[in-house]
């Protein structure tokens, strides 16, 4: 975004002063909320300071901004730093590589530095900022110490800035091997600053939209600028208690805006220049759309769907403003559920799985939830052919100690596949007999089920479910001694839904009823 961000004035002041005067060799910027925004601010500061000739300084600042997540090897780290420092300079025909060790890297830095000094009349200062610095610890942990001491190692005018969402004490090398950095903690933006920033972006978006071929290009008509400010205020009113990241708020605002202005755009004649709505219309619009922002927040913040699809799926009716207050329905067509707006058929979920796979999933859920010692009581049958289901209702003694957490809250337990197959057999015997094709060759009661549960298709279905991550394999796949063990990976709601499709009374088969 090519607009300034309000609320960062102090930060900008502090950092630019440091860079232009006497920077500490090692700066650590900590921002747990809006890292992306902070980084763009820093980039802006440095491009301003290095490119601005107005500033009376005798400094020539070369800047390298790298992302630690993309530099997953030492060579990439060196290549990226040197590459971006080099690009700024005029010298293109450098053939030497400085990427095989720290020594050569520092040589490279010194070489570049001296080269630039030769070409420039001013002092040369290198500034290297590393985004997501905490990733260095995972990928190239041995480079944290030399990076933090780069100034003293290279003996040139160089500043290194770490920018991270975690604090320095969480990634600091042991034994104090790195010097203490100069800390800057970024303050979270306050609501009014966010509203100001987002509103000020309208002009930019408007220019961008009008040049693009998007079908929403008209939504950002310049005359709507003032309405946009009110709109952003509404978005922030609803979402600010939950989200403080300015990018996320902008994301939700972008998704809702086309629907928000649609009634106005469609009611005004196409050739009119100004479509600025009246005060009354604006209030009605905001009252109408306020509830839909919540549903946008619910489905967009966890990215259950993407903004473009959400905007397309939640377009209001064009005549929504004409409807009287009594009849107004919320313009949300689908209340922010999973998969809203995506191109799915209704039957594409778990319900389209084959019947036996559903049985296996339910059996795995039972095996993961019930304790093994309860199986006989749950599924065992007496001689009288009647189910003896002696379920013990847990009576929790309130007085003694902390109460036991129910199993379905603790997560699934692993089980050997044999146990699951046995439960599957019991389920099939109870619930699947009616749907079977006639098989006169099986005469002994239970023989059909016995054959059925040992078929190849069952084993392959288990493996397929494991590959879909609907069952989790807990034993190593290369162990052939003993049965493999699995864990159920479906939720209780899914299990209940599946059981309902199969007519299994799942609630009666669970040891602890939720």
């Amino acid at each position, binding site marked *: 975004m090519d607009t300034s961000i309000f609320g960062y004035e102090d930060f900008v002041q502090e950092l630019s002063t440091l860079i232009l005067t006497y920077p500490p060799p090692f700066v650590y910027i900590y921002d747990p909320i809006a890292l992306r925004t902070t980084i763009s601010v820093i980039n802006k500061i440095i491009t301003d300071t290095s490119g601005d000739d107005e500033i009376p300084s005798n400094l020539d600042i070369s800047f390298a901004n790298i992302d630690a*997540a993309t530099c*997953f*090897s030492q060579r*990439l780290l060196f*290549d*990226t730093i040197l590459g971006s420092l080099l690009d700024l300079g005029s010298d293109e025909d450098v053939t030497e*590589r400085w990427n095989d060790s720290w020594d050569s890297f520092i040589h490279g830095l010194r070489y570049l530095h001296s080269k630039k000094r030769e070409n420039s009349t001013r002092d040369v200062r290198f500034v290297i900022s590393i985004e997501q610095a905490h990733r260095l610890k995972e990928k190239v942990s041995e480079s944290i110490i030399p990076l933090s001491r780069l100034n003293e190692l290279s003996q040139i005018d160089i500043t290194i800035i770490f920018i991270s969402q975690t604090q320095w004490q969480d990634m600091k090398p042991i034994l104090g091997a790195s010097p203490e950095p100069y800390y800057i903690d970024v303050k979270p933006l306050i609501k009014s600053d966010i509203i100001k920033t987002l509103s000020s*972006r309208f002009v930019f*978006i408007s220019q*961008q*939209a009008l040049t*693009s071929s*998007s079908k*929403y*290009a008209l*939504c950002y008509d310049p005359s709507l600028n003032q309405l946009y400010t009110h709109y952003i205020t509404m978005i922030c009113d609803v979402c600010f208690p939950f989200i403080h990241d300015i*990018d996320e708020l*902008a*994301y939700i605002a*972008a*998704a809702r*805006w*086309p629907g928000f202005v649609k009634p106005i755009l469609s009611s005004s004649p196409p050739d009119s220049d100004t479509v600025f709505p009246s005060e009354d219309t604006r209030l009605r619009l905001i009252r109408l759309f306020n509830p839909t922002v919540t549903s946008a927040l619910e489905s967009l913040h*966890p*990215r259950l*769907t*993407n*903004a*473009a699809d959400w905007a397309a799926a939640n377009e209001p009716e064009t005549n929504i403003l004409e409807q009287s207050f009594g009849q107004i329905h919320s313009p949300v067509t689908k209340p922010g559920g*999973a*998969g809203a707006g*995506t*191109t*799915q*058929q209704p039957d*594409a*979920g*778990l*319900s*389209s*799985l*084959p*019947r*036996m796979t559903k049985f296996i999933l339910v059996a795995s859920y039972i095996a993961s939830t019930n304790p093994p010692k309860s199986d006989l009581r749950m599924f065992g049958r007496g001689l009288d052919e009647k189910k003896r289901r002696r379920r013990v209702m847990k009576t929790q003694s309130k007085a003694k100690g902390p109460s036991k957490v129910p199993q379905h809250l603790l997560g699934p337990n692993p089980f050997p596949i044999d146990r699951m197959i046995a439960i599957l057999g019991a389920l099939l015997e109870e619930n699947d007999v009616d749907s079977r*094709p006639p098989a006169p060759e099986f005469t002994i009661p239970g023989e059909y089920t016995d*054959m*059925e549960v*040992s*078929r*190849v*298709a069952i*084993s392959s*279905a288990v493996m*397929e479910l494991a*590959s*879909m*991550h*609907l069952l989790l394999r807990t034993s190593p796949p290369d162990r052939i*001694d003993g049965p493999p063990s699995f864990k159920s990976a479906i*939720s209780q709601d899914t299990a209940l839904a599946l059981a309902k499709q199969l007519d299994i009374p799942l609630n009666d088969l669970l040891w602890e009823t939720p």
Partner: protein
Amino acid sequence: MPNLDDPSQTSFYIPYAPESESEPENKLQEACIAAYKTSWTKCLHRLKTSIADLYRPTVSSIAHSIQTAYDDALPGLPYPELPFIAVHNVSALFINAVLAQPPGGVILSHLYPSDAPNIATGMKNLISGFLESNLASAKRKSTRHAAHDISLLSWWYTSLQSEPRLLVVMHDLEQFDSSVMQDLLYICSTRIPQLPLIFLVFLASPPTPSFIQSTYPRTTLSRLRVQSFSVQTGRAVLDHILLPAFFSPSIDSDLMLGPAALAGIVDHYTRHDSSLDALITCVQLVHLKHFLVEPLSLLVHPPSELTTDPAYRPILFFLHSRLPPSTPNEPQALLDILTEHHTTFVTKSRSLRLGLTLLRTLHTFLTFRGYKPLHSHSGHVASTLIAALRGQVTREVKALSTYVRKLRNAEVIQDLLDDLHGVFSSLPSAVRELQEDARTKIALLRSAEPGEVDTAEFGEWLAAYIHNLIQPLEQLPLWDIWYTGSSPFPNELINPSTHASLTAGLLRPFDFTLPIPSPLPQSLPPPITTDPPPPLSPTVSDLQAQLELKIKINEAAEEEDGRNATAAAAAAAAGLHNFPDTSILFRRYLDSGKLINIYDWYESFRAVLDVQREERERVRRLRAKGKRKEKGKEKGRRSRTASPTKKGKGKQKAVVDEEIIEGREEDGAGELDDEAWQREVQARFVRALHELDYLGFVKHTGRRVEHVARVVFDVRDEDEEEGTEEE
């Protein structure tokens, strides 16, 4: 021949070699296989066409998303998102369909789970996938960028003349390491939109619960623009495929599926494996089985020299035996009759299929209007088809026609007539001519004034007409050539029960070595002239009786052939000691308790092997003696060698024992022999034990030394029980 004693090899390949070079080529079998291949190719082509029709909308919308991935961005987004097109429920067929026609202006790079064990390798493979696709511009300065550096891709892209989209195709997303994928997606997302990367990922899991949502954190998801597609699966697909591929009146099918085969296919699809690949395999199995077990099936595509080549004589005889006895015995005349019957069959089966289509149209029409003419379960296409093939749709036809009779709204009736007329006009001309009357009737009703159509009469007529069309095909002569009838679906072939097969194999090992009787007539049946003169006008029951007699004769002849083998097997099965070692050990395993003492097990195993050894010794001795006696005296030869088994128990046994003792004394090296034998038994025991262990019958417990736990507790057949008691 490989050197079987080579210890460095773990397995050997011994190619099949016919016992003798002069083994006659079986022309009948070849003709059968050729007929199968032709029919199956035709059927596969039809299936593939209807699958392509099914997939087309999804494939084209995926292609559209790829095309517009960077054009359709919502204005005002804070940062560009990486287009991420997730396709759920995919099968190999679908992936082929998508990748068969990649949209223009796109360069592909494929990533498989094994390509990305870590981030460096993953990035390297992703980048090299693009670079290799365009070798001309891949001349890179090798030292400038590392192979896993995304800058290399940027550099390469800027050197291209055109500006293609870069499509990363990821197969089996579930199998990728999620932390590697997070980094990979992050790195790719930092370079857009300068590098127009698009991700197309294939997942086997269903869209809900979403694998992507549950596996990847919000930080990764917020960089992506996930668009979900899902490939059609489930019951509806089956209906969608089966109807046009097998039961459309316009198709020209060689082999019609019978109700039993269809029911088997549907059951396997809905119960076990609802992928279209599995469906195709099932249909292929039905074809294979038909051409394997139906002797006349090669006449689906009669070989050109059928009438001239004497090798085909048996099949002609067999064909003749199926026809009324008055049929001339000339090959050419037989072929003509066959063609005639085929034409009849084709006409009748087309009528049947037309009837089914009309029924279906009627049902769809009524359900679309909000009626519920049939029970929910019989509303499925597949179940209606099965019932119709069995001739059990009278009730459905009646129910549907009742609804038609009660239609009052003139517009609705007009729509119905339009639909029905559409069915008729889509027929191929040959069929249309046959159904000209019905077509004219519907056309007349269509052109009649609205409100003048007598729905009661029309409903009656429609019911009678459909009922007439749907007639069981089993009544036609020689139907079993072109129709699988009630021959069941070979479920055991595609979905065997491992446990049952293993135990059966171990308990009755010899049953598996019996030769499969070929359905093809191997030898000429007795000449037809020897038959008793047929009655002048044979009734149906007479014909059937004759047919049965002939089949019996054939079977008897076949049994005669197979008897030797069966007899050998029966003899082998008489005693446990004739079984393979693993089987012997398994029998003893079944006799034991929950925990098995290895030493006791070994002892019982050795007891059986001792019997085996004695038996062998005796046979050897008897043979040697026989030879000796052959030289000496000719007389007593027969009585001695006649039967080494049970006949003449008492005396014979005594004699045999005597002989063994004699033999041992003669050998004189008994002790040395015994030691070697001991070692052999131990080795065979350990080998058999390991085999059982490998099959999973043995569980090692740390509870007691020298004991293993038994894991299989099966009730054996009673006779089996007795058999072992006798041992």
